[in-house]
């Protein structure tokens, strides 16, 4: 193909100098992926709009019923001299306040929340969190060893500082983790098959969620005057 042709060219010419063409490569990592999708769609009005309105209305009605039935608390006027015993934070901070019982304020109030927030923020930037296959699908024996080491380290840490409220959920989740490894690969149905198929981020987040619930519950119901241990059904 050395002579110039007057006919229209239907192929990409191999002579880049005479016939420069731009070629774009689209890889999987190209962000803002815009794909043609053939999914069924509905008109936002009225489909989405009315569904949203209904759910929101039902919820607001529920809130109003609660507001009509239960009074928000109001204790005596603020008195800088008399500290109530116990002086509890609002419920969403009680998990933190429970941790304060074991660790100094710097650790429980700054370091741990700081690490938690940082960990949350960076979740979508780690490839391991993009996996959706089971944690046991590759390198199962090695992963069991690593998991055992991590769980052991956490348990030692909690035991040394007497943080039994954090120790118990850790042991619980660890138990489920190791049992799920034995359920993997056996094509089980139901809960066992479902749990065995979960990836690593699922286990870490579930551990965090359970710790959050347990710590908050303990701080709310099981702590009395002087932050002493009380059984709520006996007070």
């Amino acid at each position, binding site marked *: 193909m050395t002579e110039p042709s007057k006919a229209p060219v239907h192929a990409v010419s191999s002579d880049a100098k005479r016939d420069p063409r731009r070629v774009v490569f689209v890889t999987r990592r190209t*962000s*803002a992926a*815009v794909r043609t*999708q053939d*999914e*069924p*769609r*509905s*008109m*936002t*009005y009225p*489909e*989405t*709009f009315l*569904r949203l309105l209904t*759910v*929101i209305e039902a*919820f*607001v009605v529920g*809130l109003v019923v*609660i*507001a009509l039935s*239960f*009074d*928000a608390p*109001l*204790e*005596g*006027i*603020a*008195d*800088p001299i008399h500290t*109530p015993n116990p*002086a509890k*934070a*609002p*419920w*969403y*901070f009680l998990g933190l*306040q429970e941790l*304060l019982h074991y660790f*100094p*304020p*710097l650790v429980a*109030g*700054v370091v741990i929340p700081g690490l938690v927030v940082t960990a*949350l*923020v960076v*979740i*979508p930037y780690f490839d391991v969190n*993009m*996996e*959706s*296959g*089971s944690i046991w*699908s590759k390198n199962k024996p090695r992963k069991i060893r690593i998991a055992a080491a991590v769980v052991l380290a956490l348990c030692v840490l909690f035991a040394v500082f007497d943080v039994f409220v954090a120790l118990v959920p850790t042991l619980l989740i660890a138990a489920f983790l190791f049992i799920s490894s034995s359920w993997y690969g056996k094509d089980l149905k139901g809960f066992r098959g479902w749990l065995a*198929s979960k990836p690593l981020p*699922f286990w870490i*987040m579930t551990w965090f*969620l359970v710790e959050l619930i347990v710590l908050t519950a303990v701080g709310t119901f099981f702590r009395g005057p002087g932050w002493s241990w009380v059984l709520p059904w006996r007070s």
Partner: protein
Amino acid sequence: MSKPIEQYVDELRASRLWRSIFRSGNGPSNLHRALAIQQNIFLHLFSVKTRSKMLAFRLTWYLGALSFATFMVLVSTGILLMLYYHPSVPQAYQDMKDLQFTVSSGIFLRNLHRWSAHAMVFLVFAHMFKVFYRSAYRPPREFNWVIGVFLLLFTLLLSYTGYLLPWDQLSYWAVTVGSNIASAVPVVGAKMRFLMLGGHEVNANALLRFYVLHCVILPLVAVVFIGIHFWRIRKDGGLYAGEEDAHDGAK
């Protein structure tokens, strides 16, 4: 009945006055349904068409929408409560008593504000966990997740600053404990606490600062972040519908 009421409504909507305000009338065609979204200043952030799959309740439990709705409830009850609240010591506590006993519907609004605040904290946590367990943080939605974490922090801050305003024992000591935790930050902790409280103690200055934070600064910042959060949903291709492939090909 000479004309059913619907006919009066239809005539009203076809009138010149109505059309000058709302520009396009209602109608049975998809064009009208599209215009109802696209030409509405409050709704035009929505896409005109929604993927039918994402309408299912079980997918998201509508937690994001409920969080926003609760936020709206909090803003409106909060503004009404502001009409009877003086952020000074000890008037603030007296105003709480007034709201509960003398102001008409005062106790209802206060209760609604308080329980909605608790609901909001719960809902944003639930929304976060739901988004995580659905893997809806995957690219290209990573940054929206980050915005969401910030919104969670703002929700907690709003709740915390609001907690001081009744100026009762619960408020005072909760904020005392919290501000002491803030002072545990190395190097800048004491300064942070001093700026936060407007002094060394939890007193009138602290109340005023928390009031301004709670009623002006934090809501404005939250609204901006909510706007970005919603805008990103559109830019990222709508709500996550499970269309991203997994790395190990399972699913």
